[in-house]
């Protein structure tokens, strides 16, 4: 049996297991409450596994290792921030949000502010965040199927969209809880087994701090799809067919060390032992790569890191698909314990992408030529370990990757369908299904059209949108009595528009890297440090000026959110109709 067949079987196995576990859960789903919040009976351990399973997306499973292979030490901030986000959620949101008794984020907004309009605006924000978050998941599927099976880019998004829509249309929250808990353990296995296997088989050969770029071990060819500027430290053994610096070449060596532009359609051939050319902006030598403070491409690395911290620390508490899972706990204490267990589960998981990223730099350095390192984890096992062992590990990783796309995408789609069907449509099961089909299809063209952005950076931008919108709404709503409906709407609008414009400019790369000392480019690429304070300030200031419109029953809402359940203040909200 060849490599492609083994991988295809693993992919199919993971997809089928997802549907089967979901179908098992479906048999126990009966009531509306089952569908929306699993009847609020999920214990902390199970719920934490489900949250982690849903949260560890393509960005975590593939993207982080790719970023670490490419940028080195500063990429470590992404997994740190993705975990710190749950500490933020635990500190500021978990228990009061659960005690509010709401069943979606828009429902919380209406509960707290007593305004139908705020509910609709929050619903629009929820749908926007989930749709933007679906785009990198679909793109990750495209990257994976291309790298693993050689399929065209569009097949991945279409396949994942189809499976997820079928799953969500059929099931509800209760069945999804089981699926997602299962997928956490699948993903942990799929990432830890290869990492540990590599550590014990080839770990001793690794020396990452060399003064030169990594070398390839066997003859390697790299196709350059779009023109790329690379940094060459040692040109020996590197030949190019295509165009170099605008000059057509045919199997010619590079003209020398320094920066060169490789035209689109070029092919780079590296002979064994040749040092890899590295895309400009990423650290080229081993010494730069192991050092901190180089940032993630572009200028102002310290600002980049701080902005990533703001986005991830505050962004997790603005992710609708994560928040909705906290409503499934029986009470506020269980919600806190769930968040705590999530921190532990994520901490264990994130040890491994770091290891794999470091190995990828050694064993698949050719990815550094084009800078498209998202496929690193998928290509690594068979490149590092020869024979059947490598093939089986590669198949396992592939299964984990597909689990990552499916788990996150179904969670996002449930949030879209839940919000749209209860707030825009009439809240019947049929409306839920119509919304799910539409919500699953819309991101497909977006995923195909958007330029190939690194997965973790794409997800980082979505975190920035979440941190600039739902995070201030929840934090101020939970802790500040002065929040008014007008303030909430103004803050949501300012946060959403500013962070979305930044994301759009970053994806289209309209802002020159050197314009105004590089500040506009870096703020657009890492907007949270600017847009989050802006959104908080807008909400607070507009609320101050519209204080007369504050809802009348704030005291009751605060008592309900903050008092322990034993006092009997809690009321579980259910959808109308």
């Amino acid at each position, binding site marked *: 049996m060849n490599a492609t067949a083994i991988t295809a079987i693993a992919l199919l196995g993971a997809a089928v297991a997802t549907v089967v576990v979901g179908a098992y859960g479906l048999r126990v789903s009966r009531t509306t409450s089952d569908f929306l919040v699993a009847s609020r009976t999920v214990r902390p351990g199970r719920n934490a596994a489900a949250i982690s399973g849903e949260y560890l997306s393509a960005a975590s499973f593939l993207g982080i290792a790719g970023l670490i292979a490419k940028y080195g030490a500063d990429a*470590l901030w992404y997994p*740190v921030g993705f975990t710190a986000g749950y*500490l933020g959620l635990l500190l*500021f949101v978990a228990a009061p949000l659960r005690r509010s008794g709401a069943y979606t984020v828009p429902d919380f907004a209406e509960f707290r502010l007593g305004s139908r309009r705020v509910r609709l605006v929050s619903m629009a924000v929820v749908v926007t965040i989930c749709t933007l978050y679906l785009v990198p998941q679909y793109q990750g599927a495209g990257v994976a199927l291309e790298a693993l099976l050689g399929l065209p880019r569009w097949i991945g998004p279409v396949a994942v969209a189809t499976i997820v829509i079928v799953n969500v249309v059929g099931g509800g929250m209760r069945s999804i809880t089981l699926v997602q808990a299962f997928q956490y353990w699948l993903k942990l296995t799929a990432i830890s087994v290869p990492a540990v296997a590599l550590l014990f088989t080839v770990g001793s050969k690794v020396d990452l701090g060399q003064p030169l770029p990594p070398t390839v071990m066997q003859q390697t060819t790299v196709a350059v799809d779009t023109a790329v500027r690379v940094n060459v430290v040692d040109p020996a053994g590197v030949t190019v067919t295509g165009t170099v610096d605008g000059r057509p070449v045919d199997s010619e060596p590079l003209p020398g060390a320094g920066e060169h532009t490789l035209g689109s359609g070029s092919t780079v051939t590296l002979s064994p032992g040749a040092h890899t050319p590295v895309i400009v902006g990423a650290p080229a030598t081993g010494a730069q790569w192991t050092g901190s403070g180089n940032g993630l491409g572009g200028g102002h690395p310290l600002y980049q890191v701080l902005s990533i911290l703001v986005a991830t*620390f505050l962004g997790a508490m603005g992710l609708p698909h994560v928040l909705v899972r906290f409503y499934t706990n029986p009470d506020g204490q269980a919600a806190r314990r769930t968040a705590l267990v999530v921190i532990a589960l994520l*901490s264990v998981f*994130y040890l491994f992408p*770091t290891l794999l990223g470091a190995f990828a730099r050694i064993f698949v350095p050719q990815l550094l030529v084009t800078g498209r390192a998202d496929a690193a984890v998928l290509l690594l096992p068979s490149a590092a370990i020869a024979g059947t062992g490598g093939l089986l590990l590669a198949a396992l990783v592939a299964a984990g990757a597909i689990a990552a796309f499916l788990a996150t995408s179904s969670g996002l789609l449930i949030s879209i369908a839940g919000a749209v069907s209860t707030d825009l449509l009439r809240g019947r099961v049929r409306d839920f299904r119509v919304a799910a089909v539409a919500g699953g299809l819309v991101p497909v063209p977006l995923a195909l059209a958007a330029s190939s952005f690194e997965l973790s950076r794409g997800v980082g931008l979505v975190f920035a949108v979440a941190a600039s919108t739902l995070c201030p709404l929840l934090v101020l709503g939970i802790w500040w009595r002065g929040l008014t409906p007008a303030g909430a709407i103004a803050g949501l609008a300012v946060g959403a528009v500013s962070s979305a414009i930044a994301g759009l400019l970053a994806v289209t790369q309209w802002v020159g890297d050197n314009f105004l000392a590089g500040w506009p480019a870096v703020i657009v690429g890492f907007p949270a440090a600017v847009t989050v304070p802006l959104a908080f300030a807008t909400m607070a200031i507009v609320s101050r000026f519209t204080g007369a419109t504050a809802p009348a029953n704030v005291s009751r809402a605060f008592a309900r959110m*903050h008092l322990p359940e034993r006092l009997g203040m809690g009321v579980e909200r259910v959808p109308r109709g």
Partner: protein
Amino acid sequence: MVRTRVEVQEQTEVGDALVRGLVRAQLGLALRLGALVFGALAVIALLNSIFPTFSEATVLGFRPNWLVLGVLVYPVMYAIGRLFVRLTEQSERDFLRVIDAGDEA
């Protein structure tokens, strides 16, 4: 006789003051621990950027910047989360004790 539980449930002036006290205590705790975590991470980022040579040293064969950000921060974040859960549940228990004591008085 003061029915403290009813005061809280009915949001009388006394009850509302009790709730405000609890919220203030919980918020203070969350803000202090949040500032501690965020501040510590920001300081690590700052140190990395001011002293890039720091990462050239090795501790037991590991680079300190990789050891800190790749491994050590995780147990610290968990420990702070645990501490928060313990303290916040403690303050809820204290709150309930005050109310129960008020009811018995």
